[in-house]
């Protein structure tokens, strides 16, 4: 054994006397703890529950001691938290005011105008309240990137140069404002148009977030917490940054937690706006319906009126291209229907008629057409109890013409012409008397016509022509007589010759046909005379 007896006795005394033994252990304990901590985490694991229990017991037993101890730490933290909460609240108020007056939307419009980007694109970009595009963990001393994370679309080049410059700027700001800012404060926000750069400062590293859009201050504690967590677990490693990002891959999940994105919450629509909108819509819809219904009623009334109108048959109605169309049959005598449209307060330019012409057999039209055909006062047509009654006094020709008219219009049924009278023609009688007064006298044994007789004969014939126009059923008879006292036979021969001469002359000059007859009378009346006699052969109705 290498130990001497004295040393062994000394060791035994340490073991038997706890105070002495403790004093000996106390001498090496700090060194032993340090060595073990460097060796592995076992000591930390062992002591942690114990320390936690001790702290818990201490807080329960004497909370004021712990409060006093934590005061220097807690007070600034609470102060910072309160100031951040107020800042966040003010931001929210500002944001609400901005959005209420739609200044933001106007701004986007102007931006779209000046940048050439589409308005929709900008609105889409703003549809996220914010989006953390890129996160850097930067070594505070060197300004080099320890590790980074970014969202799928974001790409940055030359990040090391940028982060180095960022730290330089931060140092510069610290130096320039060293008199105005408190210890520990630093540049924490940089704003470039819609891009916000947030800088959280830890003991060894900066957490830098590149944020698109507006990010509320209330998120800062979350990022601070992540940075603190990184320092808690990797503080030593951060202090001695090797310059190699690959050695710090384990930090990526922490940084990815910072890639937050928040969609813009849909603002609650002000109910009064909805109400006003609803009222306006209701009024518009109501007005539209009212005018629509009124217009339809007017059209319906117009159609009804047209249907009731004589000489009109409506077959179809429809609307197209803002116009109202009416199709049907219209009596040829009818012209415009503008007065109907005006009566119904309808703009006649909106009416389109599709008429087919036809002849109406309705009594007014029959009567109208008859009057047009026979515009004579003495001829009247009336419609009574389903029959047409013709009345008045007409001459023979008119009588025939009226009869012909109704024969040519079989659609006009039940025609009564019994009240139509043929009026007595004064001229006819006068002519008859005139003819019969123009007797032809002959000298003894003369049968040829002398010039005077021919003139008389011409007057007779011309008058008869005129009479024939009035009355077809009339005959002109030339009558002469033989002398029975003397040579009856001889006289008859002369009489016949005289009639033959007359017949010859009439036939040569006129075309009367059977209307002129020649008779030799047996009755003794007057000698050497030929009598023209007009005879009506048919009795008038």
């Amino acid at each position, binding site marked *: 054994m290498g130990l001497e007896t004295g040393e062994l006795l000394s060791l035994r005394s340490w073991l038997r006397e706890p105070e002495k033994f403790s004093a000996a252990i106390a001498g090496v304990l700090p060194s032993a703890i340090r060595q073990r901590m460097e060796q592995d985490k076992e000591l930390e694991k062992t002591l942690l529950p114990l320390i936690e229990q001790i702290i818990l017991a201490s807080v329960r037993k004497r909370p004021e001691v712990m409060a006093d101890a934590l005061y220097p730490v807690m007070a600034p933290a609470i102060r910072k938290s309160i100031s951040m909460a107020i800042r966040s609240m003010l931001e929210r108020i500002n944001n609400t005011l901005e959005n209420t007056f739609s200044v933001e939307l106007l701004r986007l419009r102007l931006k779209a105008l000046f940048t050439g980007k589409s308005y929709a694109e900008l609105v889409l970009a703003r549809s996220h309240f914010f989006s953390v595009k890129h996160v850097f963990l930067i070594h505070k*001393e060197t*300004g*080099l990137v320890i590790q980074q994370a970014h969202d799928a679309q974001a790409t940055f080049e030359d990040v*090391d140069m940028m982060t180095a*410059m960022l730290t330089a*700027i931060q140092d*510069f700001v610290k130096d320039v404002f060293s008199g105005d800012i408190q210890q520990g404060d630093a540049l924490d926000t940089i704003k470039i148009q819609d891009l916000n750069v947030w800088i959280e400062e830890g003991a060894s590293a900066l957490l830098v977030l590149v944020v698109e859009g507006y990010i509320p201050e209330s998120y800062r504690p979350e990022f601070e917490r992540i940075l603190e967590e990184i320092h808690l677990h990797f503080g030593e490693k951060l202090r001695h940054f090797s*310059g*190699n990002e690959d050695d710090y891959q384990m930090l990526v999940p922490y940084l990815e937690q910072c890639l937050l994105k928040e969609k813009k919450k849909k603002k609650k629509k002000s109910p009064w706006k909805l109400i006003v909108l609803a009222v306006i819509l209701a009024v518009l819809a109501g007005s539209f319906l009212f005018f629509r219904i009124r217009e339809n009623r007017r059209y319906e009334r117009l159609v009804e009126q047209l249907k009731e109108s004589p000489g009109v048959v409506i077959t179809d109605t429809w609307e197209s291209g803002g116009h109202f169309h009416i199709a049907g049959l219209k009596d040829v005598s009818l012209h415009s229907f503008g007065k109907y449209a005006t009566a119904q307060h309808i703009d006649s330019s909106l009416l389109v008629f599709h008429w087919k012409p036809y002849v109406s057999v309705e009594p007014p039209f029959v009567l109208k057409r008859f009057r047009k055909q026979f515009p004579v006062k003495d001829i009247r047509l009336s419609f009574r109890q389903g029959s047409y009654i013709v009345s008045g006094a007409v001459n023979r020709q008119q009588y025939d013409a009226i009869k012909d008219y109704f024969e040519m219009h079989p659609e006009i049924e039940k025609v009564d012409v019994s009240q139509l009278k043929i009026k007595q023609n004064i001229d006819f009688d006068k002519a008859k008397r005139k003819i019969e007064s123009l007797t032809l006298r002959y000298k003894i044994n003369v049968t040829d016509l002398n010039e005077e007789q021919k003139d008389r004969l011409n007057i007779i014939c011309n008058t008869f022509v005129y009479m024939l126009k009035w009355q077809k059923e009339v005959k002109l008879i030339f009558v002469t007589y033989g002398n029975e006292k003397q040579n009856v036979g001889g006289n008859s021969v002369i009489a016949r010759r005289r009639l033959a001469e007359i017949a010859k002359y009439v036939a040569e000059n006129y075309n009367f046909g059977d209307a002129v007859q020649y008779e030799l009378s047996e009755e003794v009346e007057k000698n050497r005379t030929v009598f023209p006699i007009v005879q009506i052969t048919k009795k008038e109705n």
Partner: protein
Amino acid sequence: MVKKKICVLGAYSVGKTSLIQRYVKSIFSDKYHTTIGVKIDQKDIRLHSRDYRLILWDINGEDEYQHVKKNYLIGASGYFLVIDGTRRETYDVVLELKKLVDETIGDKPFLLLINKSDIMDEWEIDSILLMDMRKRNWDIMFTSAKSGMNVEEAFRKLAAKIVENE
């Protein structure tokens, strides 16, 4: 891909920006120099079958009106100190800057670049001064932004020193 922060330091108008402008990827304008005092560029190289991305912090020249912000130095894995061979006073500025860097980020790999090596006849840097530099055990490279001399090599050499240092 391993990324490293590299600072480029030197007095005003020593050609820092010109030195790297032709050989790096740049997305920021020079106006950042005059506004925030730094401009960030990037240089990708392959070394020992591995890809490296050098993020170059081209820090505005130190002069009586503008001081280098210490914050810009923090986190650098290495740095370039640039002087203008034709202006001796730029070496004095570099000495100040080296002290500032050491105080701020401690001992880190670096290279001293003596620029405008294409016009050595106009140099104010003499052998005595070069001796002083050597005595400090600094790695020195003669570069020319105009001809491109040693520029690419300088990046590779500094990257190699950084990798070696880790």
